[in-house]
């Protein structure tokens, strides 16, 4: 009961935090996608380099978010820019990984047929490899978005705004209510992002590739 009144009291401020939060997620995952997909495509062309790059990316992913944000704070200062930079880096790996696997797992029969009937390399990529890898790629974006929703709360620490602000305030003042005020919308947001991208995935998957068709 108390929580609901609290939400009502802070509704405007919360809404603004929520908007900022969503913005953080969309921008960083968007940038991550723009970087990850072409990078993954390049990696599929040089398998030896790919193994190294994917290993490095995986290693970066294991660095705790807090450490990365701290590092960004020291090097880039306070504000949205360092937060977005960090979140973008984190959003890359799942998309990179899924795109790479998605493309390399396209059956040779399809690429062989594509080359054999006279497609150029880029035609094979855009007509065959990417469409067939699309479900995997969107799957990567989905994982990435869910992660970033929760990591974006950490970004509040370096002044990025968003739902993280409420959590950090709660932590600083030993106020559970404030923590929940930030945590619950953030959890719901993660689920909503997952569901929305899931729908997008279904919509974008060609009918011929849908397993339930």
């Amino acid at each position, binding site marked *: 009961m108390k929580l609901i009144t609290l939400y009502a009291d802070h509704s405007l401020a919360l809404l603004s935090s929520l908007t900022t939060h969503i913005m953080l997620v969309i921008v960083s995952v968007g940038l991550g996608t723009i970087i990850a997909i072409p990078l993954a495509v390049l990696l599929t062309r040089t398998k030896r380099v790919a193994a190294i790059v994917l290993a490095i990316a995986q290693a970066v992913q294991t660095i705790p978010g807090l450490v990365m944000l701290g590092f960004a704070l020291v090097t880039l200062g306070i504000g949205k820019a360092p937060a977005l930079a960090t979140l973008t880096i984190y959003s890359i790996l799942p998309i990179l990984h899924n795109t790479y696997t998605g493309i390399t797992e396209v059956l040779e*029969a399809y690429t*062989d047929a594509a080359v*054999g*009937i*006279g497609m150029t390399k880029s*035609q094979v990529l855009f007509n065959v490899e990417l469409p*067939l890898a699309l479900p995997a790629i969107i799957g990567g974006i989905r994982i990435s978005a869910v992660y970033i929703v929760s990591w974006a709360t950490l970004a509040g620490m370096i002044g990025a705004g968003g739902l993280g602000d409420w959590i950090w305030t709660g932590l600083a003042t030993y106020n559970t209510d404030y923590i929940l005020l930030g945590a619950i919308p953030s959890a719901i947001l993660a689920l909503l992002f997952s569901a929305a991208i899931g729908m997008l995935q279904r919509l974008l998957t060609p009918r*011929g*590739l849908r397993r339930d068709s």
Partner: protein
Amino acid sequence: MIEFRNVTKRYGSVTILDEVSFTIKRGQFVVLIGPSGCGKTTTLRTINRLIEPKAGTVFIDGKDVTLQNAVELRRKIGYVIQQIGLFPNMTVQQNISVVPKLLKYTPSQCQQITRDLLTLVDMPYEEHAHKYPSELSGGQQQRIGVLRALAASPPIVLMDEPFGALDPVTRDSLQEEVKRIQRKLKKTIVFVTHDMDEALRLADTIIFMDQGRILQMASPEEMLHKPAGPIIKNFLGRHAEEGANGAPKRAEAFMKKRVYTVHESAKTLESIERMRKREVNSLVVIDDDDHYLGTVSIEAIKERGKAGRVISEYINTDTLTVNRSDDAKEALDKLLASSENYVIVLNDDRSVAGIITRTSTAKAMGEALWGEIES
């Protein structure tokens, strides 16, 4: 129109193609066949430059293929692969239109092509054009695979074991369709298979390969009657000397060639000695010109024979004979009716070609079914 001149391909120290040379004429249905690893698929893929040879040249219409842009070359050559390779993210129409689209045909041209081609294989446009490959049966999918290869009207179509994964009934009907389409559209088709049935059925010319070399290039009939060497003969197996229903057609297929003969002037004791030595109980009697006269059995000599007499006195001229090119069925009927359990096979000049016994029949049938049998 397709010419290979001393084409050689090596992977490391392994030679895949060894100075392969041949010419395929326009409008021919050529089947490449041989044991796995013989180089047949490599040969096929060298034509559209999916594989570049180490040495030698491939010419299409007199032009060296390596002097043409590989992508443009491939658009002028249809290509069908075993695993079908229809793009699962595209509808039937989109799949068929892939090459026309690459060649910048208009959408309405693409649609017309799809319509015409689907009619060719009795798949109504309205019903099938907008389906995805996963919504088609295996046989329908490979039909579309073939149509896709034909879409931009290439004069040459390459097919790499296209029907290998299909069940026998579907394969049969697709073979027929492809043959019909090839005749109708006058395509030059190069077709890889390891199935001799398929090769005999489809080919105008069969190229038999082994270890990167061509062992024989011949029409199906010629290969059946004069297989160049034991590998091909073995590969032909039950097809060698075979009739329409799968069984050997001529009497000679059932005979064994080793026949013990005796000259009509031989003496009784000499003949008996000869039978004992060969462990047989009759001999075939011949004259000076090796012409067949009849047979002489050990019983006849024992019953009526006297020492020192010539065997022509005891000759049995009622033994059943057939000409070597007679119908096999006739020979087998005679064998079953014969009291001696054998039938003599004669050449056209009435010399002895062989003898059909129950054992030789069993062996011939066995070979027809399962290939070479050690005896």
